């Protein structure tokens, strides 16, 4: 999806204005038995922006995402979404899974409408909503196909449409593009930029790819392991508005990618 508003938004993002915070985690600790996955971690996620959690494996980024989703309970600390304390999964958050997590016995349209089905939305209504999101993610014509008939990339589009269909304010994405091929992934990343722009939702995006994180994010949080902590928050400023085709050769993009690699490389065996 090429962006049209390239010039207007280009420069003013450099001023670090105070953003409205949609999600905040405060002093989160999480132990699995004796293993400490997260230790006293605090992080804020600005409204309407995409924040990446980036780090080497074992730094607890997926654990943090699942705690925000309410799927895991923190050992201590708390999560707030729009000022409300999180006690479990809720309709204000939707999850996109690394392995898609589609119902293999259900058609695309039922999968996309599944979140609404669980909320008790009437069939005709939820299918109408599902249909429009299926169209939006580019799967029109596949409404009645089954997941095993689709490619990996198409399956993740179904997963994405399902998360969009419940119209949650916060989208939690757990390495959503890691199970699709490289070319599809690039297309996904471009589409995601468009999505962040016109959905006005808050995205929290877990990835292990430095390039992907810098490419899609308004804000990259670098998590480091042992002990798990936020080491750095990077806000790319200049290239966000230059259009999807120019990001990868922007000097700032390349610098940030390099800088992150320098700080991460000693954690990689």
């Amino acid at each position, binding site marked *: 999806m090429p962006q049209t508003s390239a010039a207007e938004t280009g420069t003013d993002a450099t001023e670090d204005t105070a953003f409205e915070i949609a999600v905040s985690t405060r002093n989160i600790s999480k132990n699995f038995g004796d293993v400490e996955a997260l230790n006293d971690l605090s992080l804020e996620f600005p409204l309407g922006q995409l924040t990446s959690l980036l780090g080497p494996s074992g730094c607890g980024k997926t654990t943090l995402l*699942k705690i925000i*989703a*309410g*799927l895991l309970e923190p050992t201590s600390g708390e999560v707030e979404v729009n000022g409300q304390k999180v006690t479990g*999964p*809720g*309709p204000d*958050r*939707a*999850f996109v*899974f*690394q*392995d898609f*997590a589609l*119902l*293999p*016995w259900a058609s695309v349209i039922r999968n996309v409408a*599944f*979140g609404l*089905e*669980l*909320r008790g939305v009437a069939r005709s209504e939820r299918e109408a909503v599902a249909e429009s999101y299926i169209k939006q993610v580019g799967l029109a014509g596949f409404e009645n196909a*089954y*997941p*095993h008939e689709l490619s990996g990339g198409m399956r993740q589009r179904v997963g994405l449409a*399902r998360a969009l269909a*419940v119209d949650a304010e916060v989208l939690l994405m757990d390495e959503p593009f890691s199970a699709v091929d490289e070319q599809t992934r690039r297309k996904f990343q471009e589409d995601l930029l468009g999505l962040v722009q016109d959905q006005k939702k808050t995205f929290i995006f877990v990835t292990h790819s430095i390039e992907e994180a810098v490419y899609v994010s308004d804000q990259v949080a670098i998590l480091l392991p042992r002990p798990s902590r936020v080491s750095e928050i990077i806000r790319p400023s200049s290239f966000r508005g230059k259009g999807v085709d120019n990001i990868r050769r922007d000097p700032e993009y390349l610098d940030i990618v390099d800088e992150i690699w320098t700080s991460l490389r000693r954690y990689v065996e």
Partner: protein
Amino acid sequence: MTLLGYRLPGMSSLIVWGLLWEIIGQSGLTFFVPPLSEVVATLFSVIGTDAFQKALAETAYAFCVGVLSAICIGIPTGILMGKNRLLDELLLPWVNVFLSAPLTALVPVLMVLFGFGMRAIIITTTLFAIWIIILNARAGVKQINRSLVDMARSFGASPLDAFFKVYLWAALPEILGGIRIGIIRAVKGVIIGQLLISIVGFGALFELYAANFLMGHFWAVLIVLFALAFTISEILAYLERRVSYYAAKR
């Protein structure tokens, strides 16, 4: 299979075995094996009799009630065992013991406990079928993709919704496999029950024919039983194939 350039339809081998049976029967080698043609003729004459239809009705009743209770108790038990660690630890040893136990030896005890009537036969049938149904439903739930469970939770599924819309379907291929094997075992259960507990239904017919050396009748009833069991098993195998397309992709 093709023979001399002709494609043979499925189960053509039955013709060979049928012919062999006929030849042995006609040769009069043993009174125990009458010719197949005679057995088939007997079969049609027997099917119409009141005795046969009464036996069929009684057996079908005991079988259906027995299998149905095995399914209705077995599937939820298996699913709960797959979901709940404590229940699993409590029940799994017993399920495994009963699965491999020679249940026929238990039938006299059941007679004492539940009397010499239909009730004991039904319970015998259930006991034959239920263990494999429990074990398969449990295995089906155990292999559910963790993220499918997370998905249901994160989109706000109530426990009841999660059970009926995710767990049950995700475990369905294994559950159907368990039901199919359970039903095959239930056929044994219902006949053994009828033979040992109270001489009713097909058990009574077998006793009658064997005691009077009516081998034609004996084989005819046996063929009917085999055919019934085989048909039920095939119908379930067909249903299993219809859901197996997603079995590998949960």
